[in-house]
């Protein structure tokens, strides 16, 4: 059973539906024991980092997710859920993340160059770093296939864990992973067939 962490952030309708489509058995839960029992965890999230980090901590689930991930249970953070995996974020202040991935989350506006709109919204092509083996998450995805992004902040200073990038003036972190801790900045549940293939790969880990 896959557990989607429910901590009052974001719209889980599409995520639930897309997992159902690929035949994955998933539950949406805010219960610590259910997360401990699950064989893998998805941490979703939209909105502001500070708010979400606070809600995740206050719900008591931050420590559960962190502990399960450290013990090797596959964890996939999506969008803001991915950003929360990093050490800290500079979204309106400075906020601590879960620290499962090294790096920090920063605004993209200063780095993407003039004339590009923020948020980075729409379909963008994935590239995979050449200096490391391709992530199992993307086993069924070719470089150049597009996924759907909506974000104004991105993980930076995290070269060691970057598993996919998207070109938007600079090479933005599209996905990151450290062993079984994985994050996707884009929305696989909104990325058509490519997104379903990525979710399927996560469920097969």
């Amino acid at each position, binding site marked *: 059973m896959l557990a989607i962490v429910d901590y009052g952030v974001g*719209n889980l309708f*599409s995520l639930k*539906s897309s997992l*159902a*489509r690929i035949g994955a058995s998933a539950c949406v839960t805010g219960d610590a024991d259910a997360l401990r029992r699950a064989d893998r965890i998805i941490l979703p999230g939209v909105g502001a980092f500070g708010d979400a980090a606070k809600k995740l901590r206050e719900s008591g689930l931050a420590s559960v997710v962190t502990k399960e991930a450290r013990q090797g249970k596959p964890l996939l953070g999506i969008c803001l859920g991915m950003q929360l995996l990093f050490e800290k974020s500079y979204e309106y202040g400075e906020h601590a993340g879960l620290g499962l991935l090294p790096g920090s989350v920063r605004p993209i506006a200063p780095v993407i160059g003039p004339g590009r709109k923020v948020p980075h*919204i*729409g379909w963008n*092509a994935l590239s995979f770093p050449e200096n490391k083996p391709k992530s199992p998450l993307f086993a069924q995805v070719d470089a150049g296939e597009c996924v759907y992004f909506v974000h104004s902040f991105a993980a930076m200073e995290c070269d060691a864990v970057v598993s996919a990038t998207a070109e938007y003036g600079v090479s933005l972190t599209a996905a990151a992973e450290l062993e079984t801790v994985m994050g996707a900045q884009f929305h696989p549940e909104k990325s*058509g067939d490519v*997104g379903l293939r990525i979710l399927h790969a996560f469920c097969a880990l």
Partner: protein
Amino acid sequence: MITKRIIPCLDVKDGRVVKGVNFLGLADVSSPVKLASYYSACGADELVFYDITASAEGRQLFTEILAEVASTVFIPLTVGGGINSVSDFDRVLECGADKVSVNSGALRNPSLIRDAARKYGDQCVVLSVDAKRVGGSFRVFAKGGREDTGLGLIEWVKRGVSLGAGEIVLNSIDTDGVKQGFDLEMLCAVCEAVSVPVIASGGAGSAAHFIELFQTLPKVDAGLAASIFHFGDVKIPDLKRALAEAGVPMRMIKEQAC
């Protein structure tokens, strides 16, 4: 490279897709769920649903159909029509919409944009504007294009963005349904005025019109159309191939099923 988006728009009344030509004379086309799946398989980058139902029963039906669509297709869905309050945002977002488009509701109560953006983020709030030339200037129209608000287009889109609209859909009443091409002049004026994504609507009759749109106005992010897609005058895979060949960045899909 971010790709330009091709967006079919589905006007839904009492659970069925209809399309007005110059907002008059509705003609039934097909089932929203079937059309949505078809378009997703064809490579549509996003879908827009406008609920043009007036009755409470129709609105309930729309919400049910939206949930069915959102369980079937996994591309971004924007919903508009009858959005007058933050609770209308709640209602459609719970059923799987990703973005909500406001038009007359925001004209009546501009703070709706701010309140919704605070709750759901700017990226969730799309300001849809129907505009028309009146005495040499671009004027905003309300109620599906029937009522001149007296408001200037540029003034309104700037205000909308400052309140938190994350995207603008500009529908030119002058070119809508005429199939002679998008309203490049009006679009250019809006692109110059705001820095959020602009979606062009109204006037597309052929693939050439989309090529002209993105080549003339590289700042436009997406092209939206309805009847030309619904009636098959323009097929999305052919359109995207033609655009890619013309050098416009496009998302091409591998397992195209139409």
